[in-house]
């Protein structure tokens, strides 16, 4: 029983990291139909920046927030300069360009930091263990779960309860009508893209213990991020939350119960799920 709860907590913590990083991607791919395979790159940039700042003496949280802002700004710059001209060019051009961008990230970080992995040092109060009734459990993972929950509630309030959110949902569901009623979809998109990249950067920092920072981060974990988006349904926030948690828990449980076939187990489940619901668990209306 104790192991059961531990595995559940481990899965939740992993799922929360996936959610924080992937939620921006679901916006990019859902809102403007941009196939952005460079998303992991923004998470990686955030992580590297935070690692650098913390080593230079900046405390953990300010470093994490500054690094996410920086990742968001990098994202904004990329969106305005190289992505925008591609909106009407079709998926192949978008995949090629963002894939190339991923290699730019990889080569740039290799040049600056070398090929070794980078540790993001945790503050003392996060690196220890907390007694949770039946055993000691790493404080860091409890922190991940809490952070993920807070962010999820915050995003839900923004998306479901604010005017900004209403416009965003309108633009996701039907960009043409949204434009017709006077919503500036392009500006909405840039703003959301920046926020999404910022969140990815934040995920890169706080998730660095689970998804190790190294130059190939952007490619290595891309598949998992894409799986979250596809399983959740393009452009659906709640969908990506549910999908990220489900994937985190299923993957973790798979490794615990069937360690020698865990990779097949995970991808077979995704395969079956997509056969059953090709548009994901909760597709946005425009995709259905």
């Amino acid at each position, binding site marked *: 029983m104790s192991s059961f709860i*531990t595995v559940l907590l481990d899965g939740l913590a992993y799922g929360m990291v996936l959610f924080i990083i992937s939620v921006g991607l679901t916006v990019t791919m859902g809102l403007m139909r941009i196939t952005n395979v460079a998303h992991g790159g923004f998470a990686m940039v955030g992580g590297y920046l935070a690692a650098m700042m913390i080593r230079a003496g900046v405390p953990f949280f300010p470093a994490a927030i500054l690094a996410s802002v920086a990742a968001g700004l990098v994202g904004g710059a990329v969106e305005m300069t190289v992505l925008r001209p591609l909106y009407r060019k079709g998926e192949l051009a978008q995949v090629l360009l963002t894939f190339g961008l991923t290699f730019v990230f990889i080569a740039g970080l*290799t040049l600056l930091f070398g090929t*070794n992995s980078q540790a993001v040092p945790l503050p003392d109060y996060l690196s220890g263990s907390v007694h949770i009734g039946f055993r000691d459990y790493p404080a860091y993972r409890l922190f991940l779960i809490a952070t993920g929950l807070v962010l999820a509630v915050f995003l839900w309030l923004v998306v479901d309860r604010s005017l900004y959110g209403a416009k965003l949902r309108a633009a996701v569901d039907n960009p043409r009508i949204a434009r017709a009623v006077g919503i500036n979809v392009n500006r909405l998109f840039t703003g959301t893209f920046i926020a999404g990249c910022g969140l990815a950067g934040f995920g890169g920092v706080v998730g660095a213990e*689970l998804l*190790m920072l190294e130059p190939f981060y952007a490619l290595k974990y891309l598949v998992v991020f894409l799986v979250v988006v596809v399983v959740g349904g393009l452009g659906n926030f709640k969908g990506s939350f549910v999908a990220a948690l489900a994937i985190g828990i299923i993957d973790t449980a798979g490794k*615990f119960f069937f*360690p*020698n076939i865990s990779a097949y187990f995970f991808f077979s489940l995704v395969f079956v799920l997509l056969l059953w619901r090709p548009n994901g668990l909760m597709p946005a209306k425009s995709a259905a």
Partner: protein
Amino acid sequence: MRKQLVGFCAVGALLAATGIASAETVKVGVISTFSGGFARWGEQMKRGIEIYQKHHGDSVKGNKIEIVYRDDTGPVPDKARQLAEELILREKVQFIAGFPWSPNALAVADVVTEAKVPTIIWNAATGVITRRSPYFVRTSFTLPQVAYPMGVWAGKNGVKTAITAITEFAPGVDAETFFIKAFKENGGQVLESIRMPLSTTDFSPFFERILNAKPDALFMFGPGGPSSQGIIATWASRLRPAGIKLLATNEIQEIDLVGVGKNGIGAISTGHYTETNDNELNKRMWADMKAMYGEKAIADIAMVATYDGMEMIYRVVEKLGPRAKPEDIMQMMSNMSFPSPRGRLVIDPKERDVVNDVDIRKVDESGGRVTNVAFDKVPSVKDPWKEANPAK
């Protein structure tokens, strides 16, 4: 008069001949990984060469030793084979060296055998490699050579039960097989053998399973880099508090401990090169490395195997000259024994493979760095794979 003339000519020809000989260039083709996620291998080998040339110059008796680098981009056997052909046909190299990867080394065996080019393996650690070509010689180690002593040590030092957890690829299986063999021979019991996918990011569920089984120790094998670091970090947070030991081989190197920090403390491993070795050559290599590449540079097994491989080539050119017959070169290289940063490099002439003293080390904090500290040694270990698979 006529006689004199002939004499002059002969002397002149002799002078000319030695003149040419002393201006010869010996080309060494190095096939290693210089780009992509595994570029550290190439970088460390290049540094090993440069440090060696700083110590011994870039020529031997006036013969310039020229290094020609080629990038195999990772474990890509076809690419390695094509590069070897190019080095032999176009660059006309006298030696080939490098090979971080076993599949790449195996892929060039036919090529170097046919062209009779002496080839030095600077890392690839699968046992069978040196059997595949009479022109192969190895200065690194073999996986069974380090995994087997780990199993023996565990069995003799109070470890009764163990679980093995390896990332799933060929060398991992080699490590698993020989650890289990040695551990069982020494009275140990293996509770479970877990094979984790290479793509694993979060190791905690595997470790939760191991925690439930309560073995005395976990034997791990990782591919080096982030993946191995993830295994070590998860051990530190989940299994170390429960008193489960971590046993490993060469993937616990100081160069990888940088990303792990104090999480690694207490891990026990076997390896043929320990960074804190107290010999003059090792200290000199470290000092020059720091001077040449900065304080952050760290020596590893790739650098040491390269350093020793260069010593082999220099000794051959010194004694046999720049244009020796490949058979003579192989004969000489197979019988070599000389001081190395690891202690001593010894080649077993029968198998053309390295015989290593295997250190048993523990990760500890020493002089402000988290590194390996050797506390025991198994002298002169030959490759156990070859003993288990005698040549026909």
